[in-house]
């Protein structure tokens, strides 16, 4: 499957999409770097989510649907992203003038990031969320990163696509 979604809200899964519902059953990264050095390309915690890194970096399309928490992804979504560094190598390459990780897969995913429930948020918070989303996508070797904001506090498939 060439499309991968991470969401912190319950959605009907579209066909031909791998989807992860972040608030449920994702262990927290312990910062051990085992996914680079001990079992390269997969997390050492075998909770069924050890391949998250590959899903985030080796798909044509990655879609993330998240609330904004302090100008970044929500905690559940961040928990998934923290588990995903196995998708890149521990080595380095320079992109956009800064140091990043060398890629494990040649695929360059397009990231579509939807932040919902934005009506109460300041412009500063939204601007920071946009920059954080972009930085994450560049770290994961994106082709492009498209960010959009939805004011509604609930979102459906129609809002997203």
């Amino acid at each position, binding site marked *: 499957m060439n499309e991968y979604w991470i969401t912190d809200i319950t959605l009907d899964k579209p066909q031909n999409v791998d989807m992860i519902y972040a608030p449920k059953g994702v262990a*927290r*990264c*312990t*910062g*051990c770097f*085992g996914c*680079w*050095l*001990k079992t*390269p*390309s*997969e997390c050492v915690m075998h909770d069924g989510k050890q*391949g998250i*890194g*590959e899903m985030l970096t*080796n798909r044509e399309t990655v879609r993330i649907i998240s609330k904004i*928490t*302090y*100008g*970044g*992804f*929500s*905690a*559940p979504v*961040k*928990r998934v*992203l*923290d588990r*995903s*560094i*196995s998708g890149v*190598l*521990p*080595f*380095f390459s320079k992109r956009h003038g*800064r*140091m*990043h990780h060398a890629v*494990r*897969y040649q695929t360059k995913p397009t990231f579509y990031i939807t932040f919902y429930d934005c009506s109460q948020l*300041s412009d*500063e*918070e939204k601007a*920071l969320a946009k*920059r*954080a989303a972009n*930085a*994450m996508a560049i*770290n994961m070797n994106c082709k492009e990163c498209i960010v959009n904001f939805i004011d509604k506090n609930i979102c459906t498939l129609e809002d997203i696509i």
Partner: protein
Amino acid sequence: MKTVFINLTPKKKNSMSGYLLRTTKLFIKGECVTINYRGSADDKKILCELENAQNLVFVTPLYVDGLPSHVLELLQRLEKTVSKELNVYALLNCGFYEGEQCELALNMVKIWCKHSGTNFCGGLGLGAGEMHRVLRWNIPVSAISAVLGALALAFNFHTLGVSLLWNAFGFIFFWFIFSLNMFLSAQKTASNISKSKNNGLCYTTVSFCPSWLFTILASGYWILRAFFFHGIPFWKIFKRYNLK
């Protein structure tokens, strides 16, 4: 003046956050308390210590260009309960060379301060965190080398003794030279914390080590660590997940 440090690394020991925290703490004047955060069970302890504190310092690694998820969870729980009088600082460290990569996470702490009504007083973004962390091992290596060198000299192995002593000096020298920026920034930040002054957003990284040298040292480090700690040879690091 009471300062509460919260160490937010998920690592149980030998973390860079712990090292940066202790270095900064050396230069703090006034009462200091450190809490090693391990999970929501520590919330009570944190709130209890914060009751009579003026300064709160979050010390955390950077994860994927933001605050780690467990830090977000803690911040969400603290948001409604902390005192609005607190001065909040953040000490971030990241693996990449440029300390500036911590800027996004520092600004996230700033936004948390707006939500919680506390007073954001800036912080520090330190680059090359993993390198700083590993460089500490130069100290015991140097000490052992010095002792062996002295013994060799005592038993009249002159050439061996002198080379071991030079070795000891080299290890200490490079630890000090590369960590100088970190010490200076920690000192400056600590002095601002001690006075509850705004630190602004400061960034630093290893001193006397250009980014190309960092890249060589860090890449070599990963290769050696994979091989000696996990028996993984160089080429296996590049494995692809779906091609088992």
